[in-house]
């Protein structure tokens, strides 16, 4: 079984309760269409299993094939440093088909974030190291493409992609005596 090598810590972006029984870690890329397609499923999973589930998102940008994935991940980190990671995360996926730096500026502006500060952060690569650390951690954990999910530390492999998540989490919760 392939397992998550990098434990979830306070350095992570976590959505949901600290005491959740299930931790779902997603390694994703804002420009990957498969991640975009998984997004509504991930949202549904969160709604359905709250408060038993928390979601962690880590960056796995395939920058050679997705030229905007790097800046998008850094933009999300920039928003995160200003307490708005998840709002930016949702906005980036919602606008996946037209990702560009000007669009990221507009999204920052709509979230009342400083576009000057964002431009500066992207130009200096302030969050590039954090994004790269996510990527390498993913590689060491056996992330083999995007999106890759880990449910309580075990890699979730399914021929149906994210569609199998609900069933797998159901089974896990049934097995957990609460």
């Amino acid at each position: 079984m392939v397992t998550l090598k990098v434990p979830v810590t306070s350095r992570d972006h976590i959505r949901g309760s600290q005491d959740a029984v299930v931790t779902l870690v997603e390694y994703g890329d804002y420009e990957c269409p498969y991640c975009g397609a998984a997004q509504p499923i991930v949202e549904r999973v969160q709604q359905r299993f709250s408060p038993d589930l928390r979601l962690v998102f880590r960056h796995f940008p395939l920058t050679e094939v997705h030229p905007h994935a790097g800046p998008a991940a850094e933009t999300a980190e920039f928003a995160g440093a200003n307490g708005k990671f998840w709002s930016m995360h949702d906005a980036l996926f919602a606008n996946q088909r037209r990702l560009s730096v000007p669009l990221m500026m507009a999204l920052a502006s709509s979230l009342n974030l400083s576009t000057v500060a964002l431009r500066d952060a992207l130009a200096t690569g302030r969050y590039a190291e954090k994004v790269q650390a996510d990527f390498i951690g993913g590689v060491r954990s056996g992330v083999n493409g995007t999106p890759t999910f880990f449910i309580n530390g075990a890699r979730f492999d399914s021929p149906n992609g994210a569609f199998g998540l609900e069933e797998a989490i159901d089974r896990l919760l049934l097995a957990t005596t609460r």
Partner: protein
Amino acid sequence: MTELLAKGAQAPDFTLHVTPDQTLSLSEFAGRRVVLAFYPADWSPVCGDQMSLYNHILPEFRRYGAELLGISVDGVWCHQAFARDRKLHFALLSDFEPKGAVARSYGAYREAEGVTERALFVIDEKGVIAWSYRSPIAVNPGADGILDALEGLPATENKNGDAQGSRNVA
């Protein structure tokens, strides 16, 4: 199913085309580490396909002094188009004629389908297999096993490990 060559075996040498007019031999890599990644075919229909993924991990492989070689039965022109499309920065070898001969010598050929297995080999500086792994054909094995194997090798003293390789054919 034939047995994959295992740890301790000498890696069979080969000379294969990497472009229509260039060939590459394993023996050229003597003194360096090689990651040999057999995969069934170019053009897997996902963005995180195995070769694209490895393309992003190249700096990590090179940090451990290893060069990456992809290998499948696809022809050189197919490889060239695929590498260009995915912006690959490493060589793809064409085990095309006689078809699959090199894969067979590594125990990594699927006779029924006529394609190579999804099989990974880490070859050390002396040309000895340090680690091998066969993945289920439909499962992209990722790179964690390769990196664990490279990490487990004794520290390298070679000077060329981080170089682009003697030939940048990608």
